[in-house]
């Protein structure tokens, strides 16, 4: 028996569903930072990202009765997160997310001027810029896979496709990101 079998996210959420709302606090502690970074990369500003995290947890309580736990807590939470995000875009009248909406600047603001950047800092900045230019489906896929927000089979369940398809899509996304990254790097060095 593993500790995760006993105190798993799934177990906690089932209790929340059955009326033990306080346990949502444990789920918040475990997941709010990851959700925040997920939104930061796929919805832009810090303030927006925080609002969206809050909204996800509000909805978890509101729709807790819909939780069945069959495909696990992670996919359920990120499905909710994606809905929250698209509702937000609709409210703001934005077209589905594209690179023009990404606030890479906000992140970059806190960093030293380009000339002072070390090589690695610079490539992190360029990678961020490249990531922001990727279509949102690919960007979120990469974030989910690379930051280990979800396992491959959970991503498959979230996207309603097979694990093999998930792998192919991630591979394509890395390829496209590499291409954009290369392009930007060449422009910067030119």
């Amino acid at each position, binding site marked *: 028996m593993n500790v995760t079998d006993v105190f798993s996210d799934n177990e906690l959420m089932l209790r929340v569903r059955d009326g033990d709302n306080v346990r949502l606090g444990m789920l918040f502690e475990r997941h709010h930072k990851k959700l925040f970074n997920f939104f930061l990369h796929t919805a832009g500003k*810090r303030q927006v990202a925080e609002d969206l995290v809050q909204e996800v947890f509000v909805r978890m309580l509101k729709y807790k009765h819909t939780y069945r736990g069959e495909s696990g807590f992670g996919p359920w939470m990120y499905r909710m997160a994606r809905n929250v995000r698209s509702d937000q875009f609709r409210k703001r009248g934005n077209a589905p997310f594209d690179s023009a909406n990404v606030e890479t600047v906000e992140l970059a603001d806190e960093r030293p001027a380009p000339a002072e950047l070390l090589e690695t800092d610079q490539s992190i900045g360029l990678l961020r810029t490249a990531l922001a230019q990727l279509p949102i489906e690919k960007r979120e896929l990469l974030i989910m896979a690379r930051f280990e927000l979800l396992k491959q089979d959970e991503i498959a369940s979230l996207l309603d496709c097979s694990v093999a398809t998930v792998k192919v899509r991630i591979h394509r996304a890395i390829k496209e990101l590499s291409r954009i990254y290369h392009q930007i790097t060449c422009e910067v060095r030119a």
Partner: protein
Amino acid sequence: MNCEEISELVYDYLNERLDADCAVSFTVHMDGCAECREQVSDLQHTWTGLADLPQEEPSSELKARFYSMLESQQVAAKPRPLATWFQNLAVFPLIPQGLAAGVLLFAGILIGAQIESGENVDELRREVRSLSQRVTLSLLQQDSVSERLRGVRFSYQSAVYDEEVIIALIDAVGYDKSVNVRLAAIDALKPYLSQQPVLNSMVTFLGKERSPLVQVSLIDALFGTNGGETLETLRVMSNDAQVIDSVREHVRTLLEESV
């Protein structure tokens, strides 16, 4: 293996999930194919770079907002005045210094008052017990290390923890950034090591713990329990080159003494 097959396996390769046979054929093809070599190295560079993107921290306001939302839901769900008042105080994450201990005292006075007015005493005692646990939980969620330490110490106020406090303490042992909080939480959990889930999680954390201080404290706590899995973990540690010498020495001594 041809170029197309390589491209199908790249993702597993990047994640080091190729099985041994595949890995060999993969390497053989790469050695002989400059095009694949270049492509894979590009992808690897990007994939590694993604992992290096720093994770950002949300502001502390997010936490405050969440707990006040949770609190308002609680109030809506349970319209019992006394309980609600306690929860307001205890679940809201910003408890001023010293107030937590005062809360219990005050609760005692309230109980006195309620007894006179004929309320059910057992019910109120239960409420106070759950109150002290709520204070523990709330303190354990603070950003400041000294508040979290107070949370662990506060947990001693309850003779018996409920499951949620145990979970919070386990989380503290496994995930708290402060060595001091982790050490204090280990101490607080010692009476619960006979419970299999608690024991198992401590053994798991020992495997990933990097601070020698905490390692030794976990080892000492676990050693008394003598479970098969514990001994196995300790044996592995005694031969793990990543474990610093003094800790390894400590484990070996314990294991030798136990024979």
